């Protein structure tokens, strides 16, 4: 983990309120992998806490990271107004990330949980798993983004809230509808989606690795703001609470209570 000032290499609006930003940050990019996140800092003095944003792509040769984010509030709004050449403070990489032990992974991303699946798919692909064996199930609100980039390296299934693309419903609806099968689930998305995935994984007896979100303050494991409830006593906390920022954000679905 390092905190540095990174140059923005590229900033673009993908669709609606979703933006994609490439930042140059060699010290952070060199250790970064799928499932981890970075903390972004606002320049405005009224906003002091870091904004956690998942890593969407790592370009080790280019010493850079791609972050795809939704303008949820004032902080992400500020980021979206920054331009190529501007600098932004970033700390990372933070968190455990995904473990890649699988043959037929199913990646599920819902909404703004879609971006981290891209780096994961790339890493699985780089590991030698071919396109047919990487299933990616994407749940959009309405309009799609990042879709073509997934299609290059994985078999993609789509659902959407409005039914405007793919089947109308959520990612689990899509999994059932299209009969998607695999030996491990990797997921990121809203809590109701993760709950459904946890249940699905239990029913089908396959491991599910889910990425959790919580409000953070330090973003580096010190403040105990960002906990989730664990089934077993957590080693660090000595209670049934793990820190999402450094003990996660990825947890095995059967080890946490959602």
């Amino acid at each position: 983990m390092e905190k540095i000032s990174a140059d923005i290499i590229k900033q673009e609006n993908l669709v609606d309120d979703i933006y994609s930003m490439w930042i140059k940050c060699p010290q952070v990019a060199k250790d970064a992998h799928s499932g981890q996140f970075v903390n972004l800092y606002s320049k405005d003095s009224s906003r002091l806490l870091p904004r956690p944003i998942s890593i969407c792509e790592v370009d080790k040769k280019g010493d850079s990271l791609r972050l795809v984010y939704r303008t949820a509030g004032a902080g992400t709004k500020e980021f979206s107004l920054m331009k190529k050449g501007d600098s932004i403070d970033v700390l990372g990489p933070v968190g455990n990330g995904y473990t890649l032990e699988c043959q037929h992974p199913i990646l599920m991303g819902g909404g703004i949980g879609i971006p981290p699946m891209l780096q994961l798919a790339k890493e699985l692909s780089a590991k030698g798993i071919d396109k047919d064996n990487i299933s990616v199930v994407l749940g959009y609100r309405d309009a799609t983004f990042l879709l073509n980039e997934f299609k290059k390296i994985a078999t993609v299934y789509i659902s959407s809230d409005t039914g405007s693309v793919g089947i109308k419903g959520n990612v689990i609806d899509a999994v059932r509808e299209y009969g998607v099968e695999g030996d491990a689930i990797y997921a990121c998305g809203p809590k109701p989606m993760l709950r459904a995935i946890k249940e699905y994984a239990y029913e089908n007896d396959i491991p599910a690795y889910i990425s959790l979100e919580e409000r953070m303050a330090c973003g580096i494991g010190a403040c105990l703001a960002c906990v989730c409830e664990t089934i077993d006593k957590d080693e660090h906390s000595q209670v049934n609470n793990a820190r999402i920022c450094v003990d996660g954000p990825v947890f095995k679905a059967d080890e946490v209570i959602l």
Partner: protein
Amino acid sequence: MDNNVNMAVDFCGVNMKNPVTVASGTFGSGMEYSDFVDLSKLGAVTTKGVAITPWEGNATPRVAEVYGGMLNAIGLQNPGLDTFISRDLKFLETQDTKVIVNVCGHSEEEYVSCVERLGECDNVDLLEINVSCPNVKEGGIAFGTDPKCLNNITKMIKAKAKQPVIMKLSPNVTDICEMARAAVDGGADALSLINTLTGMKIDIYRRCYTLANRTGGMSGPAIKPVALRMVNQVASAVSVPIIGMGGIATAEDAIEFIMAGATMVSVGTANFHNPTVTSEIVDGIEEFMKSQGIKDLSEIRNCVRW
């Protein structure tokens, strides 16, 4: 110009290399921040509040950002004294800095047992007693806001403590000097202030409290003027040394607290915005002393008098 400045301070007989420590609960036990700061650069590390047994803390969301600061309702989650001693204190033994252990409890007995066990630990230099727990036996926040309760618990702790005792005061009171005197009359060797100001945030779209706990403790630069005022008032009301805190984010802020009467200063929420801030503050104080021709902090401590 002679450039040798003396940043060392004596705090209750403990010699600190400089007046900068961290605010309990914002720095873990230093481990997490050691990627960013050389802990030996700090006068002392103040650890997250620890109780005799592990505490679960509150439901999430536990934090919310507010203008120039944040609210927290962590609820004093902690791993309990055993793990704290075997892991956190052990880690701190390897660091060239002093150790202030922040103690919490649900009842007077719990505070006292904790303090007794810590008396056996060699590398605990000072005890800081957090009496503003949101969740204590005797009528809630009574320890922190009722001078009689505060006086009583201070006495009970002092009767058993091996290390000097710093009582940490809550700012949510009408008369901070009355609280300070109650603690000092009870035997407190030092005071630290301020803990957080009780605040609230509402999510107007979801029509609910932003924090699961409804209210939370406000910290960060936004509370600095209140903290500074209280430190200055207390500095003239009692004669024990003070650890000043509340919104310190720069060396200039730290100097303000020292001029107001603090012997040491704690940096809290600022760590979340800038993990290297403590080290920058140490350097900044040194620079300020050099540029202003101050050889020893005693020249400016409490120079702005009530």
